[in-house]
């Protein structure tokens, strides 16, 4: 079998982590290519059902990253995200998703190197966990949910 290349989706906020990842680029730091970044105004916008959808559609791991606790561009969006994350993690665990498949981090606009490290570490740890297959179960519940939202 080929070397397993995990698919990782990163949900990041526009003000801190997106800019931090830009800095990684301007600094020409290298990191694993497995990550795809999706931009949000704020981690507060991230609906955790989205993460569920990402797993259902075949992601092996997810990074959620925004501003440091007191630096949120919108003052408190990241706190709300954190709080919802606590609830969501419980739910995931109940569903049998290893919580380590979701990495919650803070990367500021000045932390280009941290972003590179975060991606590399996540890729490594997801490689260890192996591909994620269990999403079919979830896909069902997700479909039901999607009906109400299309």
């Amino acid at each position: 079998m080929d070397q397993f290349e995990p698919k990782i989706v990163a949900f990041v906020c526009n003000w801190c982590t997106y800019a931090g990842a830009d800095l990684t680029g301007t600094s020409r730091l290298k990191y694993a290519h497995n990550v795809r970044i999706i931009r949000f105004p704020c981690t507060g916008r991230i609906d955790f059902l989205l993460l569920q959808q990402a797993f259902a559609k075949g992601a092996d791991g997810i990074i959620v990253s925004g501003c440091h606790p007191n630096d949120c561009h919108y003052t408190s969006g990241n706190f709300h995200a954190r709080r919802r994350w606590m609830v969501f993690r419980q739910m995931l665990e109940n569903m049998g998703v290893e919580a380590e498949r979701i990495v919650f981090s803070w990367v500021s606009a000045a932390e280009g190197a941290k972003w590179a490290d975060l991606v590399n570490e996540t890729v490594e740890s997801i490689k260890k966990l192996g591909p994620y297959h269990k999403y079919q179960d979830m896909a069902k519940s997700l479909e039901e949910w999607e009906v109400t939202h299309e």
Partner: protein
Amino acid sequence: MARIGVFVCHCGENISATVDCDRVAENASGLPGVVHSVDYKYMCSDPGQTLIKEAIKEHKLTGVVVAACSPRMHEPTFRKACAEAGLNPFLCEMANVREHCSWVHEKTESTTQKAKDVVRLLVEKVKRNEALQPIKVPVTKKAVVIGGGVAGIQASLDIANGGHQVLLVEREPSIGGHMSQLSETFPTLDCSQCILTPRMVEVAQHPNITLWSYSEVIGLDGFIGNFTVKIRKKAKSIDEHLCTGCGLCTQKCPVRKIPSEFEQGLGTRPAIYTPFPQAVPNKPVIDKLNCTYYLKGRCKLCERVCPTQAIRFDQPDEIVEVQAGAIVLATGYDIKRTDFFPEYGYGKYKDVIDGLQFERLASASGPTGGMIRRPSDGQIPKNIVFVACAGSRDPAKGIEYCSKICCMYTAKHAMLYKHKVHDGTPYVFYMDIRAAGKDYDEFTRRAIEVDRTKYIRGRVSRIYEKEGKLVVVGADTLLGGQKVEIEADMVVLATASVANPGSEELAQIVHVSYDRYKFFAEAHPKLKPVETNTAGIFLAGACQAPKDIPESVSAASGAAAKVLGLFANDELTREPLVAVVNRMAPPLFSTCIGCFLCQPVCPYNAIEREEFKTRDGKLLKAVARINPGLCQGCGTCVALCRSKSIDLYGYSNKQIYTEVSALLDEALV
């Protein structure tokens, strides 16, 4: 049917060195909905932009994806180009294939694949973008300044001199705030009244300023540019138009023993009074809680002596609504008093006083005519002890912060004392001398070297009275913690500066946040120090944190500059990336179930309640409504709403779910 154009940039070699750009373009052309796809060396150059503009016209594009650098770099450029070609700018998206791809990966197949993926993702997103119009809101060019201390005065004057109307609302009968109580001010020792009074008079006479003293803000509605401020004008019991400020009434009023707030309880005032001689406005008010007529129904002496028949006992409070485009909060601070210091006998021993009381004693217009006399028996103290950090930097007492101004005013007090009592000895118990400011350390050094104040590094443990003296028990930590006992004639506690007692209530009325010490919170500690989280509401002076006069005034001018910047526009234009709660035809009105769980999570208080009623006023449904003037588009409410009734323009559910699907539906690597 979507007609999307994809434009892949080489950025010279920056992208093309690791990403196979023409294959990315080619791949894109096969995506559903893409009708045009090209690559080019420099997209942001003039020819590059022309390429896009012409393609929009030629292919009747309904959406554009530029695969190039970070949108943080050139999104405005390309959106502008689209707009010039007649395409709504919000139908243009950028795929970041430089910072997030070519620069961070080696030249491999995976890198080109990543670029293809990102382009696909944005093509799917842009298909679901909506043409948005920037939000325009009109601006009422009138400011309400709340609080008339030095900060409120400065802000009012700056805005008024900028040519705009100001309404200054002051709670007390006069403006002036704490600065009007001060004797002389550090670091220059100029007389506080001398520099403040002209400003107060200027406020009173400025054609652009309306001053409502003895008034309070009791409600606030609306949003930036369009506030409605509800104000209670407390009854002063005089007709201000008739009163000439002659002062006969205050001289004749038989109730004379009311502790004067202005004199910090060291002097008295009558029931009809102006707080101090230079008060602005210089017209008295009747203190209803102490006036014999209000209490017992007789007296009316003031009415009899008033030459202009200005007294109005039956005057009611008045509630007025005012339109304003901006608000400046300048409600200042207070200092800690009373039972806070049982170990120092504060409130128990008359000669243990606080800093503001000392200011009154040292003030030429104060109760002792500027002689330092102790309150108990009027003696001139020969030994005086100043206790710094009294209650500040004291987690056990619940105040962890440094009050910032007390090191300086304590040094000032020691100096003023020494200047007036040449044979006396001032002692200062301190922990650190915090004198970081222009000419500040020089000032405290002068207190030590020239005026020979004895600074003792250590906190006072307790103060007790013994045979007419106050025994101050402290330690000298620079001598290893050796005990020091000073028999003082008077003790001055530099008590902590705290938020104004009414600040929490006011913050709730005007919807601004406050910190755990109840000081108003700035929007960003470094880069937005005079803004609040509520657009259009600004902070000036010590209501934000303990501040001295220079800082209060700088902040006030900063706030005024923000207001003037706002008033420079007739309309406000905002990016339309805001949240909306859906609406539909009755009987549903909205899928919103009216739980209002979204309300408290919004950092900008943008979520309001909208009620649908029948013609006879019966409530049919209450649903959330988002005020686009206030919403900043963080999306927190969107993620929170269980019934998925809120969506965010630019980052709608449809858009981001599609992004996720588009990304993962095909194999990545």
